[in-house]
């Protein structure tokens, strides 16, 4: 009989890890709390930096996990270490035993209403990057009504001592410029502004996207943070910011403001994580054993981590980690 590997989370990391372990001859079992596999990527329209359809990537990943035992709408509600592995209780009252556990629980989106000064949930035309992506996917959002001027705010809930998130969320800069280009594709006459602290275009093709956004789409990047959003009598948004390159305060009227919300630790796994004895790191994500040579390991024997549960990560980074965790688990199972 093949060895069971419990994979908690059916997003990009969980699916790819399961696919790899399956190919290696092990028996991965995915437990996903939502009604479908795919995680956050499945909610996305196109991916940076090449505007690749997210659906193509998700479909390819789904194809690879065909035949793998998967529980949807299911959570692990209890887990105990037993001799030679783990015993898990699921929310559907089923139980399963596994030789190893992979935590691939991903991230939550920062709740934009916590940054009260941006007026999300107060002013109608303030929206999040996730909601804008849904607009790109469905073409529907009553807040987007032939806008003439659109603003993007970077680092919402990231690099921000006020909300106790001092880390960089890594993907928001590139996502903002991708979405800025896309909104210009839909509304070519609109003016698009992004308000950033630093543009962290670190990956392959990211800097090209930054240049493309300005050369081909006339996106205007303003180095400065938005400090306040309010609404005028016509329902338009009035924002205040500082243009730090000019050294001047700035006030602007916008039709839509998009908040680039950061990643936060997925807290729905906290109870199980605690039972497994895996701590959090200083950013509140899961602590791996070593940031260089043990990024998929935890201090607990047989418990592994992959993807954005340990820190904000891009999709390529997540898939890379999922493949490496599969190798780690395989070696762990076959260590004797």
């Amino acid at each position, binding site marked *: 009989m093949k060895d069971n590997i419990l994979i908690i989370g059916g997003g990009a990391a969980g699916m790819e890890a399961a696919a790899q372990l399956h190919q290696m001859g092990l028996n991965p079992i995915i437990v996903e709390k939502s009604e479908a596999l795919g995680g956050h990527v499945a909610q996305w329209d196109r991916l940076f930096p090449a505007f690749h359809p997210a659906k193509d990537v998700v479909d390819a990943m789904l194809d690879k996990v065909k035949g793998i035992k998967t529980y949807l709408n299911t959570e692990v509600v209890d887990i105990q270490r037993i001799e030679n592995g783990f015993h898990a209780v699921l929310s559907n009252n089923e139980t399963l035993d596994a030789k190893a556990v992979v935590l691939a629980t991903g991230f939550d989106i920062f709740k934009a209403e916590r940054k*009260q000064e941006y*007026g999300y*949930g*107060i002013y109608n035309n303030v929206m999040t990057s996730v909601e804008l992506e849904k607009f790109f996917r469905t073409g529907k959002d009553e807040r987007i009504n032939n806008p003439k001027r659109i603003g993007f705010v970077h680092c919402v809930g990231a690099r921000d001592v006020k909300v106790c998130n001092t880390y960089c969320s890594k993907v928001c800069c590139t996502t903002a410029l991708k979405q800025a280009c896309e909104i210009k594709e839909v509304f070519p006459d609109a003016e698009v502004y992004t308000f950033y602290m630093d543009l962290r275009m670190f990956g392959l093709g990211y800097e090209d996207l930054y240049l493309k956004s300005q050369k081909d789409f006339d996106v205007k990047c303003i180095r400065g943070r938005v400090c306040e959003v*309010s609404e005028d009598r016509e329902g338009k948004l009035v924002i205040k910011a500082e243009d730090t390159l000019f050294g001047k305060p700035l006030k602007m009227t916008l039709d839509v403001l998009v908040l680039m919300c950061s990643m936060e630790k997925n807290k729905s796994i906290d109870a199980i994580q605690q039972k497994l004895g895996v701590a959090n790191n200083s950013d509140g994500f899961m602590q791996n054993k070593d940031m260089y040579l043990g990024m998929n390991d935890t201090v607990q024997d047989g418990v592994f981590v992959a993807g954005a549960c340990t820190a904000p990560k891009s999709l390529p980074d997540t898939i890379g980690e999922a493949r490496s965790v599969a190798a780690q688990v395989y070696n762990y199972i076959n260590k004797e």
Partner: protein
Amino acid sequence: MIIEGKQKIWSDYQKDIPDDHYFYVRSCIRQAFWPGSEVTFLDITRNKLGKDFYENPYHTTCGGIAYHSDTIPQETAMTIIARQFALMHESGYENYVCSCITSFGCYTETLETWHEYPELEAKIRQYLWDSCKKEFAKPKYLAHASDLIYKFRFDIAKQMKFPLVNVKTGKPLKVVEHIGCHYSKMFPSKGFGGAEYPHVLVGMIEAWGGEVVDYPERRHCCGFGFRQYFVQANRGYSESNTHKKFESMEPYEPDLIITNCPGCPYFLDRWQYVIAEQTGKTYGKNGYGIPALTYEEVAGLVMGYDPWDLGLQMHQVAIEPLLEKMGIPYDPKKKYQGINGKDLGQPMCPSCIKSV
């Protein structure tokens, strides 16, 4: 505007303060600016609502103006504050309420700083003993006086004679609320409603029948800003801030501005006169300005206090149009009469903003 979003924030930022037995400290400048406000607060709380609010004649300024103008160090301001708290303790009280927003900010900052840096608290304890021979104590509860009027707003509404309603049209008066910067911008959790959408004055306006105006420059400073005004060369900044606010609120045609800070009503009131003299522009209707009142003055008006007993003749902007909108009777002849009919003298008539 999504009102449910604001309501969620208002419910998140509520604070637990007692409704009775307070040691009350006055502002060092409000009695000169708005002499009826503090006495009205004490009359409402003590005599209309039957609460225990005690004043000690030996209390002083909190030192806030000097502190925020960088003329005294923080340790000096903290020692002054420690003396105020010691007076509260000596008087047998543990709930402290102050009239001034800057004082409230200073007290809050001091208590938080002592909490974070106990060694500094120990130093101030010693300074207090060395300088005053007083026993160090901290209040159990700290409140701003507007917190108490907010807490009692529905009790006041029960005794209300003149709601914030235009008697000619039957429509709610449109009211701008202006919160003093030091109320909750530094410590959002210490103010009712937090820092971005405070509820402390909104709650009063709604309880008393008015309609709140939310305009783009709502959060902007009144123009006082301490050094903006105290440094004479900076006063153009002060006026330009006030001007920015009035330009922003003008399209909403507000009937009234209500404030909870000593300086805000002063600058929102007096700069209207200066702007009118400089530009010929007034922001009220028919050549009048927009009255900028304290929350105690508004509470007094709705409860039926005589406008001149409230000291409303001390405002540069004429109050009479507001009184007529609210249907409040007043005797024009008594506007500049003090107690026992003493003639206080009339101000010189400005040329561009109507004063009566």
